[in-house]
Each structure stands twice: as structure tokens, then as C-alpha cells.
């Protein structure tokens, strides 16, 4: 006897194409033009801040930086879908998620100056600090989701992981836990097509990354155009609404238009022709086209919007650059108390002026 023991499939959808045309059947009724305008503003602002951070790094005013260029729709669409009481768990490139969630901008720039104080994240932001080792945040996200269920908060957890991250054991373990616990974890695979120099096909023989969720027993498996902010918003919003019924895996197909980090040189491994192919699919371009047709966006509106925000950005940078580090904070924040041996180390460093020995 034989029978089919399992079958599964992954559905892809897009709502707004690269010319700004909308699929009316898929367009949700909770998205109106004002909402789309809000999405565009966040994406434009995120790109502006990103460019600023990149330029600060090039001027030696920031440490190694990981740009988000090209991935604005995935991040803004997902972040805007969060309700006030939902949590997000980033990796290291989710700058626009912090922006939408209201992280004070000076903290963002302070992080890229290299200070832990940047990660004193205000409670209302409801997000974790930047996690650098790829995918290691995923089990935390599953644990936070368990805690929401246990504590009956009704909150969902939206976690971000990259295409490369789906190769790590922690990724599989996390989605498997979420499946086994039926926990409210929405995993967003921000598939930007490249893990530093390796295209997604070198990571896996799987046709989609979303299908990895099927093996974890997760019912809500979706692949969306990650450069379509409305599609991402819809996928995440509906997954959050359904999250008391269990987890979801959403793969957002996007493209890293820039560098992995400022230490990286993509010309070494990535053909220019590929980048050119993705340029028309830019996540911001299509929304501008759509809103221009409706008379809600044009160059003057954009200029006014940027002028207004540039001042805020510059003030935030100024504040971050005026930050004065206190080396004692290294000692005072490791444990809930300062152990005696550590205090002796600290006192010796202060007493002997060790910290004055180096100039920057």
C-alpha cells in the first residue's frame, strides 16, 4: 500500500507591480491612499538616513555600516503592520523597522558610532537590540512568542532573518519550536538575494525559502514581492491577526542594491547586469508612480518632506557625535552588581590613568 503522506505548496503574491499598477482583487480594503503615502514617506526617509549613515562611515565618522538600500519595502511594510503591543526581533540590517517603531534617531546614529548606550531601547519601541551573528536571534524570537502565549498578552512577535540566515541551525530550531508550541511567531525571511558574496542558490537546493516553514509544520506560508510594500504589509498584518492560531513564515523577495557592509566590495562577485535588472523593481519607484498619478506626490512635495526631515537627521547626528563615553559603564552593566574583583580592576584603571593612554 502506498499513499501520499504529505503535500504542500507555497503561494506568491504581488499587489503593486513595478509600474505602480495595483491588483484590485488583492488590494485589501484597509489600505487607502493615505496609508500608501505614509508607507512612501517612511521608505523615502529610511533611504535618506541610510545614505547619510553610509556617508558618515566613508568620512570616518561611523564604524562598519550595513546599508539597507533596496530593502525598504520589506522592512517598512512589515513594521507598519505591527500593532502597538507586538514585538519585533531584528538581525542587523533592519534600520527601517526601528525607524517605523519610533526609535529616537540619535540612538540609531550612536549605534554606528560604536556605543552600547545606543541600545537602551525605549520600552514603547518593543524591539530587541541589533543582533549581529546571523539567525542567532531566531530562538529568542520563538521564546518571546512563547512568553506572549504563556502570559496571555495577545501580542505577536515579528522576527527578521536573511536568506543566508535560513541556512543556520538556529533558524530551523526556532521555527520548529514555534510550530511545536503553536506560538505567535511571524518569521520574515528578508531574502535580498545575496549573503555577502553568495547568491541564494548556493545556500540551498530548496526552490523557495518559505517552504522551510512547511517542514516545521507551520500552516501560514507565504512568499511575497518584498519590493511591494503593500504586499508585505498585507501578508504581515494578516499573519499577525491570525497569530493566536499559530506561527507564520513569510518570505519577502527583495534585493540588496548596495553593499553587504562598508567593508564589502560587490563588484568582485556580482555582475552589474544583475543590479541593472533590479533597478526598475526599486520599491520606492513604483509607489511614487502610483501616488504621482493620484496627485499625492511630486518633486516639490518630496523636497519639502526631505527638507523638513533633514534638519531632524542632522540634529540626531549632532547629538550622537556629542556623546561622551564613560568607560566605567563597561564595568557597571555586566552583572546586576559590580563584583569585588571587577571593582578592583576598574579602580586600578582609573587610579593609574590607563584609559588616558591612547588617543583615538
Amino acid at each position, binding site marked *: 500500500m502506498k499513499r501520499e503522506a504529505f503535500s504542500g505548496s507555497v503561494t506568491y503574491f504581488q499587489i503593486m507591480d513595478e509600474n505602480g499598477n495595483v491588483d484590485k482583487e488583492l488590494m485589501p480594503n484597509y489600505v487607502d491612499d493615505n496609508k500608501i503615502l505614509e508607507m512612501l514617506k517612511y521608505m523615502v526617509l529610511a533611504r535618506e538616513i541610510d545614505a547619510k549613515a553610509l556617508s558618515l562611515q566613508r568620512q570616518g565618522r561611523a*564604524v*562598519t555600516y550595513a546599508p539597507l538600500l533596496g530593502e525598504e519595502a520589506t522592512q517598512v511594510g512589515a513594521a507598519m503592520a505591527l500593532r502597538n503591543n507586538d514585538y519585533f526581533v531584528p538581525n*542587523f540590517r533592519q534600520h527601517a523597522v526601528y525607524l517605523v517603531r519610533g526609535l529616537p534617531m540619535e540612538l540609531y546614529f550612536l549605534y554606528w*558610532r*560604536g*556605543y*552600547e548606550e545606543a541600545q537602551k531601547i525605549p520600552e514603547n519601541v518593543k524591539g530587541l537590540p*541589533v543582533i*549581529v*551573528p*546571523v*539567525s*542567532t536571534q531566531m530562538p529568542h524570537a520563538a521564546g518571546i512568542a512563547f512568553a506572549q502565549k504563556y502570559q496571555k498578552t495577545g501580542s505577536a512577535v515579528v522576527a527578521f532573518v536573511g536568506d*543566508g*540566515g535560513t*541556512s*543556520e*541551525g*538556529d533558524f530551523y530550531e526556532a521555527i520548529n519550536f514555534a510550530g511545536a508550541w503553536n506560538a505567535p511567531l511571524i518569521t520574515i525571511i528578508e531574502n535580498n538575494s545575496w*549573503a*555577502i*558574496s*553568495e547568491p541564494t542558490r*548556493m*545556500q*540551498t537546493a530548496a526552490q523557495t525559502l518559505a517552504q522551510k516553514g512547511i517542514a516545521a509544520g507551520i500552516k501560514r506560508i507565504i512568499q511575497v514581492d518584498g519590493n511591494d510594500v503593500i504586499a508585505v504589509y498585507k501578508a504581515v498584518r494578516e499573519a499577525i491577526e491570525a497569530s493566536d492560531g499559530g506561527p507564520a513564515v513569510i518570505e519577502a523577495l527583495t534585493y540588496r542594491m548596495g553593499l553587504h557592509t562598508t*567593508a*564589502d566590495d560587490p563588484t*568582485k*562577485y556580482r555582475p552589474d547586469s544583475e543590479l541593472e535588472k533590479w533597478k526598475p523593481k526599486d520599491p520606492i519607484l513604483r509607489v511614487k508612480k502610483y501616488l504621482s498619478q493620484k496627485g499625492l506626490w511630486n518633486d516639490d512635495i518630496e523636497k519639502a518632506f526631505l527638507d523638513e526631515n533633514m534638519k531632524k537627521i542632522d540634529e540626531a547626528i549632532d547629538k550622537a557625535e556629542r556623546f561622551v*563615553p564613560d*568607560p566605567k559603564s*563597561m*564595568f557597571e552593566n*555586566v552583572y546586576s552588581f559590580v563584583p569585588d*574583583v*571587577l571593582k578592583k*580592576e*576598574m579602580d586600578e*584603571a582609573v587610579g*593609574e*590613568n*590607563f*584609559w*588616558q*593612554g*591612547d588617543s*583615538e
Partner: protein
Amino acid sequence: MMSNMVTALNSALSSILENDRNAVVLGEDVGKDGGVFRVTDGLSEKFGENRVIDTPLAESGIIGTSIGMAISGMRPIPEIQFAGFMFLGFSQLVNHAARYRSRSRGSFKVPMIVRTPVSGGVRTLEHHSESPETYYSHMGGLIVVEPSGPYDAKGLMIKASKLDDPVVFLEPTKLYRLFKEEVPEEPYEVEIGKAKTIREGSELSIITYGTMVPVVKSVVEKRKIDADIIDLRTINPIDENSILESVKKTGRALIVHEASLSFGVGAEVSARIAEKAIFDLKAPIIRVASHSLPYPFPGYEKYFIPNELKVSKAIDRIMSV
């Protein structure tokens, strides 16, 4: 030819791949990209994608599959992109690479070299600057090597490729391109398990390795201190003989490393001196190391890593007794 550590290591890997058909290099971005620090640059073009393998992004998988290759008669040389990420493969290293030989009483062996950049001072993000040598040395079964210059880097790498043991090969990021020295183009070996006396003196023994070697050298030269400087080069197995011989001669021992103070290599070295040469000492042993804290974000690292002032003051203290 004059080489920095990156080109010296590249030359060593190239010669290993050329001379051992069972050797492969594998890791994230080691192929076309040539590694994030360019240590494997050009190797993929030279030896093919079959021998210089871009792997999926999974450190435990990289080390675990390397172990499988090694016990099958291959000689894998995995690269872990940064020291902090190697902890994702920690279980494979300590539970398996370190134990196959002992658990099978020698019928299985794991000849492989796990390479990773270590230590800080180059203002990178979190998890890119750790000095993890103690973790790998503590459990036994792993050879731990850390060169401080191009010549030793190449010779130690080639020597490691001749051993039938798992070698953790730690490459100080800060020293990758800090200076050049004469490195022969042909293969040569530097003994593993043997420290190098890089400067001879009679009043003080300074035992160091890795990123602190140039710091110690600079202080000793500037102040014209009459000191032995011993570069351990191999952390495990530690070269106890060289340490004791020097300390018995000078009567003073200063240990300098970038890894954190508490439970570090300095504790191991000072314990051995205390056990076996305490009556030769004229002054208490001093350790200079980074603070006993998690490695900080780059803005704070200048307060964390020992600087010349700290080394200099330690010398004052030890010489004043």
C-alpha cells in the same frame, strides 16, 4: 619576498592545496570573494570551486562537515569569518573534533585546520573582535596556534597541515596588514608547540603572543628595557620549557595578552611559573590583559585592550621590586 600576514597565509594555503590533493578550503565567501580579509584570494580561480568551496552560512555545519571530511581521509581547512561566529560551531569543535581520536583510542583522526580572525583594535561591530584562545585550549584535544607575524603565519600553517590533529588557527585581524617581513616563496615549517624568543635580555621575561607582541616590543624598545620577549605562537600545547628557562634566568615574569584577564592564558602561564620556578622569582608575577568583561562595542575598545601605558606601568612595578 616581502609579505604581510594575509599574503603569507594565502601563499601557505596555496602550497597546501598544491601538495595535498585531499586538502580543501571551505567557508562563507572564501571562493569568488576571496574571504572577507582576502586570505583565500585567487585560490578558487587557481584550484577550482570543487576545492575552494563557498558553503551555506552555517558555522556548525562548516565545522561539522569538515570533521566528516577529515575522518574520511581529507584535510579540510575551514574558515570561520569572525571569531565571535565560531561559537556557533563550538559544540562540533569541543565535543567532536577534540575527541574523535581519544574516544576511539586513535582509530579515528581529525586532521583539519580551522582558521578564524581574532582580537580587536580595528573598530569593528560586535562579535568581530573576540580573543577566544582559552576556550579552545581548555578542554584538550585541539591544538591552538596564533602567529604574530607573516613569517610564522606561513610556517605554522604549513606545519599544521602536516599534523594529523585538529588545529585551531587564530589570525589576529589587526596584524593582517600591519607590517611586512621577508617570507620565502617556497614552503617551510615553523614548529608547533615551540615559543619564539624574539628579543633577549637579562632582567625581565615578558611572555606574550598575538596582537600584544608589537605593543610589548614597542615599549621595550622605546624604554630600552633589558628583557626577554617570548612570543608563545602556540597556545596549546604550551611551551613550558621556554617560559621556565627564561624566568629562571631573569627572575621576573610579566605576561601580556589581549584576551580578558580572568581565567586567561596568563593564569595558566603564571600558575606554571609559580609551581615550578617560584624560588627563582625576585618579584611577584604580573599579568596585563583586557578587562574581565565581554568585548565592548568599538567605541569602547580603546579602554578595554591593554595599551602601551598599561604595559609600561606594569614594567615599572615589576622592576621596582
